[in-house]
């Protein structure tokens, strides 16, 4: 805008910067600081701000713990990292794909609102309730557990979905090996599926809103020109929707990295389903090792940097083409 004073943008930004600075950025910096202090040591020196004595150190002990994985029974760091990798690929891909498909399809039918509501409802359910539902879904006893009951009907063997670490296709067919290298395990997939169930509604809603923003004129013109739905989908919808897809995918990847509630409530990280967030929680709050927890958290934060870089690049691209 012409004549906008230099301080105006900062005025608009101030509340956001203040809030995220205090509630989010400061804890992050504090955690990074913590991660460089070995347990029980007094660090190198101490800064005193506002009455909070902040110890600064430069030990790499905590990071070595993560790399060496000396306590695989209690805190399997390698397993946790691999599991996170699985989450951020499998969970994101499936959720985005499903959300997109549903958003596009539902827009074509008159009962769009009803269909979308059905997919969305899992998001409205709190984790506490969801854990109760899925507990019954995955129950081992086929008299009680829905999934095993269905499996039994079609001739499969009841499986301990949340505890079995075998290969994912094992309950369904005899083909393939019994176990695959971790993290490809039945119980991981079972958990991811619950995540997909909960988050597809989110992807669907955001993508739907983006879909509405595509000018109907363009769509009509394409149809008149004889393009079939498939072509319209790939040549018009996807390109126009790509900024939104990036937003959704980015959010989901970050969700996958942060995934805590779901895993914690369903398995508490047992049977090798631990993710970095649950491990962080255990170390920091249950085992009285906040420094190791801090190091884990820093690893998590590092993973998100490349993702953010990619998505910001897209924004810049969008801006240039505006």
């Amino acid at each position: 805008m012409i004549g906008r004073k230099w301080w105006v943008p900062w005025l608009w930004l101030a509340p956001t910067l203040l809030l995220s600075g205090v509630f989010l950025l400061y804890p992050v910096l504090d955690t990074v600081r913590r991660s460089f202090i070995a347990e029980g040591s007094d660090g190198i020196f101490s800064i005193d701000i506002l009455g909070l004595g902040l110890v600064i150190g430069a030990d790499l002990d905590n990071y070595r713990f993560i790399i060496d994985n000396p306590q695989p029974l209690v805190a399997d760091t390698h397993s946790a990292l691999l599991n996170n990798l699985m989450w951020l690929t499998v969970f994101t891909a499936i959720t985005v794909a499903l959300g997109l498909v549903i958003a596009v399809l539902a827009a074509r039918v008159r009962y769009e609102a009803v269909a979308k509501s059905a997919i969305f409802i899992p998001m409205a359910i709190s984790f506490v309730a969801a854990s109760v539902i899925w507990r019954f879904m995955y129950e081992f006893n086929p008299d009680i557990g829905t999934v095993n009951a269905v499996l039994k009907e079609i001739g499969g063997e009841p499986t301990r979905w949340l505890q079995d670490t075998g290969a994912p296709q094992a309950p369904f067919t005899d083909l393939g090996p019994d176990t695959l290298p971790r993290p490809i395990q039945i119980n991981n997939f079972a958990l991811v599926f619950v995540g997909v169930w909960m988050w597809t509604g989110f992807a669907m809603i955001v993508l739907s809103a983006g879909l509405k923003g595509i000018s109907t004129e363009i769509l009509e013109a394409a149809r008149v020109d004889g393009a079939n739905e498939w072509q319209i989908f790939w040549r018009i919808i996807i390109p126009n929707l790509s900024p939104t897809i990036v937003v959704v995918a980015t959010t989901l990847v970050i969700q996958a990295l942060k995934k805590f509630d779901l895993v914690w409530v369903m398995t508490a990280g047992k049977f090798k389903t631990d993710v970095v967030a649950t491990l962080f929680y255990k170390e920091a709050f249950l085992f009285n090792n906040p420094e190791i927890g801090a190091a884990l958290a820093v690893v998590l934060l590092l993973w998100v940097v490349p993702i953010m870089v990619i998505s910001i690049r897209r924004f810049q691209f969008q801006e240039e083409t505006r």
Partner: protein
Amino acid sequence: MHLSRRLNSLVVTVLLLAALSLLGLASACGDDDEGGGDGATTAPAEGSPADLTGETVRALGIWGSEEQADFEAMIQPWKDDTGGQVEFTGSRDINSLLTTQVAGGDPPDVALPASLGIFKDLASQGELTPISECPGLEDKVRAEYSEQVVDLGTVDDKLYGVFMKAGNKGTIWYNVPFFEAQGYEPLAADANFEDLLALTEQIAADKESGKHNTFPWSDAEEAGGGSGFPGSDWIQQIVLGDSGPDVYDQWVAHEIPYNDPQIKDAWEKFGSILLDERFVLGGADQALATKFSEGSIPLFTDPPQAAMHYLGSFNSGFITDPTLGFPAGLEPGTDFDFFPFPGGGATGDANVMMLFNSDPATCSFAEWMAGADSQEIWVKLGGFTSLNTTVDLASYPTDLDRRIAAQLTDPATVFRFDADDAMPSGVGGDNGAVFTGVLDYLSGGDLDDILQGIEDAFPAQASP
């Protein structure tokens, strides 16, 4: 412009909601939902109670549902007498909640967690207030509790914790009519593990020969973050019974390594029953998948699918609760009963009450909680076993409860606190190495690896 009309209706909706909530708020302000449970049945007798009107005690515990109601009944006389208020927050995530609040500078006045690990951590970090800072409290505790229990609450030579609401873990539950019909004898107090194994063999042999169709054991290990604790209870009872209290103490204090041959022996004995498909209903797989509160259900099907189930004394509360899947009307003594775990020892756990300051309200509250008068209130309501030696045994509602309490306080029984609760967090307790180890062992893991893994979990967990 139709767009701004939509904006308007959104604004209207929001304002309506806001107005509604304010209205509801005004009406809810008049809502008095303070207190619950019985009216006071006993007035606190000791001394002249202080006047604490307007003072509030913040308490953090694990209790929910009926437990919370029972707790409210227990503290009602204190509130009536002193005029003080109690803000109780119950959460099963008490360990992380407490850790956060303490680290954040916002601790409660009183906390009642169920694991020793966090108690010891906080005490050695200096976050707790010693009991001695409340006038008269330490003397009272020393007078009314056994030396063993007082020692447990002592860290660095100072008394920090008072134990209440104990659980007896030396109880094996069995189906009485089944035992009588088949001629089996519940084990006597001086039996040992071999006797238990013999009984197991006998029942299994009879099953195979067709005399009946009942497995000797039912086992259930699933408990969320605490999965594997029943197995850990098995093992510590075996250690206590077979190797004796001295070895037990050394084991808990980590004076002997976790993979010491005696400990390994205890694990193997545990495995000799739990890993034998003939002995356990559904095998180890079923044990891993069944929730611990439902472990006794197979004992009461018709005909019973299993004869015995080992779980702590709180199991009697489950068995008599039809909403958990048990048939209604099961009577203690006639339908179900327990016999002591062989070996002459009983392990138990308890909630430990600890203080974060010595304000008058806090001290008065603590004194009430530690005394027999308050504990008898909950005892009468069932589900509470007290460690206070002055509690009248007659106040226990059933003979069963009395025997459970007696087993804990009987000088002939060797009583020890639950081993993994006493080990450092990370080794013992929820999500710790021991429980995970149990689960691994039952899933077919290698015992030496597991024991080494648990042993490895020790050093890094040592508190600073």
